[in-house]
């Protein structure tokens, strides 16, 4: 739990020596509390106070980072239970499981295909985060070979699923030069697993059948010098994982319970009778850090990546595009002119449809403070006055040879007012949904 400035002050030398660069110890304490200064600026703090202050400033859920040859993923360090309270910060990683027993060629082909996957969502590139390579063969040499095959096909971060320390070592050696997550230590093998992880500098996942057992194991592993841990609490289906993951986040955030303050890993497709997609969706919304899927399926991965993007969007900052006059498909003076808001999802929906329709067109993106058409209209941020102002401010009349403006069907009621705000203009009411724009232009736009 974060300490207040006064609580920090009590732990400082209180000599006001100014060596830290601040006029008083209290001023320095306040800066520390606001996370605008670092404790190491004080050369005189006692070792005991230092331990207390460092422990208190550590995040309640540890940030764990893994890395491939190219690309990193950091999860954990979340601060709220509900995204509206602040935001969720570190998007859970989505991984695809690969078995070493599948054979070299099959592994290579599967990984190469999944590695190449990427989709554009409102200007953001979405892709898979990495691969979970499993030592299903039970043979260290085969596992090492499979890890190398995966690395030859992808530079993304890896999770190494190795049930024994021997397999773990073989996999970690083959992954040398990267920072994979090793899965997993349990009550029977934790010492050897800890040694292997420590030698490789890799974070370690830990499996337990109850929270009590998990807490005991993490304490032992920390005692053995492993700080970067990931938890698999073993909860399987929808109900149990929701309850357990909620409990774990609450323990970390509300009780500052350190032994369980680590990110979580889940395998939604390994649960008997579960719908992998829907369980993965639940785990995205409710608190997973690493999600391992059983197969690469674009039609599933794309919506799950979008869900992750949506849930982890900062609620305080809607994603916006720059208000301006946009050109699509190289329009001339006769091309249709449409208007929409600067909420990025709205903008991209409209722009993609117009682009896909093949029509050259002009698109006025009005400043609606990042809201969608209907929301902005209800909030008074997308009214006739604002639209007219945008049309005038962006120099539309200098570029467009006609005076016809297509407005979204959702705000058909604005057409009268707009004709008053823009004298001489003809206001056309477009479709309610972007997906119908092509059909609308074909039917309604005459040059």
């Amino acid at each position, binding site marked *: 739990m974060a300490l207040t400035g006064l609580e920090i002050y009590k732990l400082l030398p209180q000599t006001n020596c100014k060596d830290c660069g601040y006029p008083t110890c209290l001023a320095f304490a306040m800066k520390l509390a606001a996370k605008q200064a670092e404790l190491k600026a004080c050369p005189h703090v006692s070792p005991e106070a230092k331990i207390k202050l460092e422990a208190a400033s550590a995040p309640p859920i540890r940030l764990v980072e893994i890395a491939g040859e190219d690309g990193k993923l950091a999860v954990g360090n979340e601060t709220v239970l*509900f*995204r*509206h309270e602040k935001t969720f910060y570190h998007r859970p990683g989505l991984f695809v499981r690969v078995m070493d027993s599948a054979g070299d060629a099959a592994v290579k082909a599967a990984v190469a295909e999944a590695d190449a996957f*990427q*989709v*554009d*969502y409102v200007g953001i590139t979405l892709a898979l985060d990495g691969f979970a390579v499993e030592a299903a063969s039970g043979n260290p040499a085969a596992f090492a070979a499979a890890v190398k095959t995966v690395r030859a096909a992808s530079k993304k971060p890896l999770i190494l699923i190795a049930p024994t320390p021997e397999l773990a070592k073989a996999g970690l050696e083959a992954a040398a030069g990267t920072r994979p997550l090793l899965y997993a230590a349990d009550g029977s093998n934790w010492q050897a697993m800890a040694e292997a992880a420590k030698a490789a500098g890799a974070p370690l996942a830990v499996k337990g059948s109850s*929270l*009590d057992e998990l*807490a005991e194991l993490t*304490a032992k592993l920390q005692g053995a010098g492993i700080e970067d841990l990931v938890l698999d609490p073993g909860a399987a*289906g*929808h*109900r149990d994982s*929701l*309850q357990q993951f*909620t*409990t774990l986040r*609450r323990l970390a955030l*509300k*009780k500052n*319970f350190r*032994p*369980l303050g680590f990110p979580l890993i889940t395998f939604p497709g390994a649960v008997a*009778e*579960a*719908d992998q*997609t*829907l*369980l993965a*969706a*639940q785990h995205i*919304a*409710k608190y997973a850090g690493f999600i391992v899927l059983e197969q690469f*399926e*674009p*039609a*599933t*991965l*794309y*919506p799950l990546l*979008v*869900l992750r993007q*949506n*849930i982890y*969007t900062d*609620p305080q900052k809607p994603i916006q595009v720059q208000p301006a006059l946009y050109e699509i498909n190289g329009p001339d003076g006769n091309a249709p002119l449409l208007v929409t808001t600067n909420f990025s*999802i709205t903008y991209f*929906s409209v722009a*993609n*449809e117009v682009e*896909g329709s093949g029509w050259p067109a002009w698109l006025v993106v009005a400043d609606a403070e990042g809201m*969608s058409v*209907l*929301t902005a209209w*209800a909030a008074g941020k997308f009214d006739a006055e604002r639209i007219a102002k945008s049309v005038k401010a962006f120099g539309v009349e200098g570029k467009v040879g006609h005076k016809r403006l297509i407005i979204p069907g959702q705000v058909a009621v604005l057409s009268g007012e707009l004709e008053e705000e823009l004298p001489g203009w003809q206001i056309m009411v477009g479709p309610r*949904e*972007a*997906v*119908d724009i092509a059909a609308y232009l074909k039917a309604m736009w005459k040059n």
Partner: protein
Amino acid sequence: MPVEIPKDKWSGSVRQVTLGATAQQGGTRSRTLTLGGENAMPFLHYEGSFPNPPALAIEIRDRRPDEWSPLLYQAWGEAINDPAEWAKAAEAAGADMIFLVLSQTTADGQPNTPANAKAVVRKVLQATGLPLAVIGPGQADLDNELIVPVAEEAKGERLLLGTCEDKNYRTIVAAALANDHLVQSKTPMDVNLSKQLVILIHDMGMPLERIVMDPTTGALGYGIEYGYSVMERLRLAALQGDGMTQQPMMVTPGEETWKVKESKVGEGVPAAWGDWQKRALEWEAITGATLIQSGANLLVVRHPKTLQRLRGMVGALQPA
């Protein structure tokens, strides 16, 4: 190391609202549907009780809809041409309720009429014993013109009538009051607006036991996070004891998802989007599943397969 499980204690709970009336209760439904009643955040069975799992409704239209996704025509086959057949097919698909949305126009392009709306509602009531919602086309004047006669025609059935919005609720609320129905109170993704409209409707004399809140949602990728957080905030307020946020929440993931490109169309989209049929179904199901997490009590979907998948999920969220 014994770990103490932190539990939240809440003073409030979600109000129970019952839709549909059996013969004994003055209607003709073979069963009723009760929403709400929980007193903790979704599915945390260790700190509250959840007497009524989320219910699933299928959206049908009073006639074959224009411009729906080909996948939906395929799924319902011939039944989509006749509301009574469609309602039967939805019941067979496992729906808890039929959500009938009236069209703006009749099949020949003429404005929909009260006589047509009444006839369709009568037919659907005869075709299925499930509780029924009847929702207007979404234009204030036409909504009122169609819903009032429907309310009279089905007096005593405890239909869910809509859409009540802040700019148009009085006529529909009055018709529901006079004929023993319930109302859908719909507001655009805003906690205060949701609460305010419930207050306004309640002020007209409508008992709170007959109001279902629709906080509105966006589809996955198209603003779902706004609806999701508004729902979580409404539910937290309800549990904290704010009486005017304690209505059960309904959402329409079917309507929202089947109009977005990812579901609707199979051509002219990036290859990386994957198989169309699979993607379209994932889109509706993931949207629904996510809203179940944020506290939805009633979800209206369009595809029978989605209903089946969400049913499985709701089952998996029940206590052991």
